[in-house]
Every structure is written in structure tokens, then in C-alpha cells.
């Protein structure tokens, strides 16, 4: 075996060792819209997406709580992501918004979103800081941003967003 072949074999071995690791550093995100802007949340932290049929507002609730939703007999506390992020209220309310049911929280929680965009695979190396133009309070709700076909996707920090 000539030195060139050995070198090629070493390179191949190195690639095969690093490929699975690189794969692990990629995560799937559900992209969704609030108005024209696209946001994402880790796919492994959600369990269901459904249309909102009945949103029961709770009088006296904080602004970040949209209300309670009956999802086939299970009552979810629906969080108003738009309000939590400090985004302006829509000029015309979405006719049939979606609720994204989350997993891993003590209470049954969900996020109210306007539209579902797509599922995006994002490498950790592609995650960038939030734009400097975003207010600090809003930027604190994100782990970063990633460029996807739908635009610049803000990656939500669910632990922060759910602290209503």
C-alpha cells in the first residue's frame, strides 16, 4: 500500500468517525408563522399540532396566556406566543389558528400559532445569534436564529417562553 492509499484510508476512517457525530448535532425544528415571521421549536419537545376549535379565554389571566383549549377532552393551557414575544396584535385575527401541544412540562401546555411552515433540519453550527435590532427582552426568548427557506427562523427557548 503506497503512502497515498494509507492517507486516503485514514481520511476515510476519520470521516466515518465524524459523520455520526455531525448527524447528532443536527436537530429538527417545527417552523411556524406568527404573521409574516417564521419561528421554530425543537420537534422533540412537541407532541401534537391541531387546529384550535374552542379557545376559552380566562378572565384575569396574564397576557401570555391565551386561554384554555379542549383538545379531545384534555385541557391545555394555551400560551400566546405573540404576546410573550411582545409582537403587535394582528390587525385581523387568524380564523383558524393552530395549537402546538408541548411535551415535558408539568402542566399540559400549548402554543397558539398562526400557520405551520415546515419541518427544518438545523445544524448547531448554523445557529446564529439573534439580530441586534431585536429588543433584549424578546431576544432572551430565543436560543438563536437559523436561515431556512421561509426566512430567518427564530429558535424559541421553550423553558423561557413558558415562564409566563
Amino acid at each position, binding site marked *: 500500500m503506497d503512502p497515498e492509499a494509507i492517507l486516503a484510508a485514514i481520511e476515510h476512517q476519520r470521516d466515518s468517525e465524524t459523520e455520526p457525530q455531525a448527524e447528532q448535532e443536527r436537530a429538527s425544528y417545527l417552523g411556524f408563522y406568527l404573521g409574516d415571521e417564521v419561528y421554530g421549536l425543537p420537534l422533540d419537545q412537541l407532541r401534537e399540532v391541531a387546529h384550535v*376549535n374552542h379557545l*376559552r379565554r380566562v378572565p384575569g389571566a396574564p397576557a401570555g396566556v391565551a386561554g384554555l383549549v379542549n383538545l379531545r377532552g384534555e385541557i391545555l393551557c394555551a400560551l400566546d406566543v405573540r404576546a410573550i414575544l411582545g409582537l403587535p396584535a394582528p390587525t385581523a385575527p387568524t380564523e383558524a389558528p393552530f395549537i402546538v401541544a408541548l411535551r415535558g412540562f408539568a*402542566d399540559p401546555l400549548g402554543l397558539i400559532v398562526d400557520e405551520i411552515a415546515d419541518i427544518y433540519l438545523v445544524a448547531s453550527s448554523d445557529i446564529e445569534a439573534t439580530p441586534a435590532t431585536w429588543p433584549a427582552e424578546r431576544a432572551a426568548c430565543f436560543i438563536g436564529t437559523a436561515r431556512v427557506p421561509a426566512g430567518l427562523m427564530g429558535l424559541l427557548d421553550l423553558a423561557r417562553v413558558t415562564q409566563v
Partner: protein
Amino acid sequence: MSTPVTVVPLLVFEAADCLMAVVACEVGHLEKRFRDPFSDVAGENGSRNHFDLGEYFAGRESDGPWLQWARGSRRAWLRVRRVVDVVPVSIKGLTPMPAPLRAQARTCAFLAAGVSGDDVFLLLDPARLVH
């Protein structure tokens, strides 16, 4: 051997643009026509113990009947928009209020949420209402 299911009759009513409920056996009677319902009722400390639930939760006065609520020596009058029904509800079917709502000054009066048809109602504990 299955665990017996505890069913509680709840009085469901509308107030503050919301569906609420109280334990039916704690409601003495309704005053459909408006009158001063407090002439013969005083709170434990002598203060008048009445709550317009529309005003309490949403800042808008209700235009419906008054419910007389009592639990032991505690009693109060609750004004609602309208009474909907008395429905038997399984305790297991109730969901404790989520943390974001338990911590709020007003919404801490709700113990749990339940489902009536497709809609969600809030189980109110009138003992937690405060002036």
C-alpha cells in the same frame, strides 16, 4: 376491582364572558330579580360579602341573577350573567389549573377546569374571592 368514580354535581353559569361552575350543593338559591340581596347577609367579619363576577374578573357588571353560596359558616352572593345547567362531573375529569393561572391574584380563585360538551368551564371556589 375498579376504583369508584366520584361524581359531583356542578352548577354551570356564564360570567365575565366565561363558563364557570360551583359545587351545586353549595348554592342555596337564586335571586332572579334584582334587589338588595345583602340586607340579611353579612360576611364573617360583618362586611358585606357579595361579588359581581363580571365586574370582579372582567371589569364589566353582570346583568343576571344572584346566587347565594354557602360553605359551613362562610357565605357569599355571586352575580352571574346567566345560569346554564347543573351537570354531574367526574372529579377525575377535572384538570387542576395550570401554574401560570394559579399564581395570579384573580385567577387563583379557580380550582380546576373541566369540559362541558366542546367547551371548557372553570371551577370557581368562591371562598377565594377577595375584595
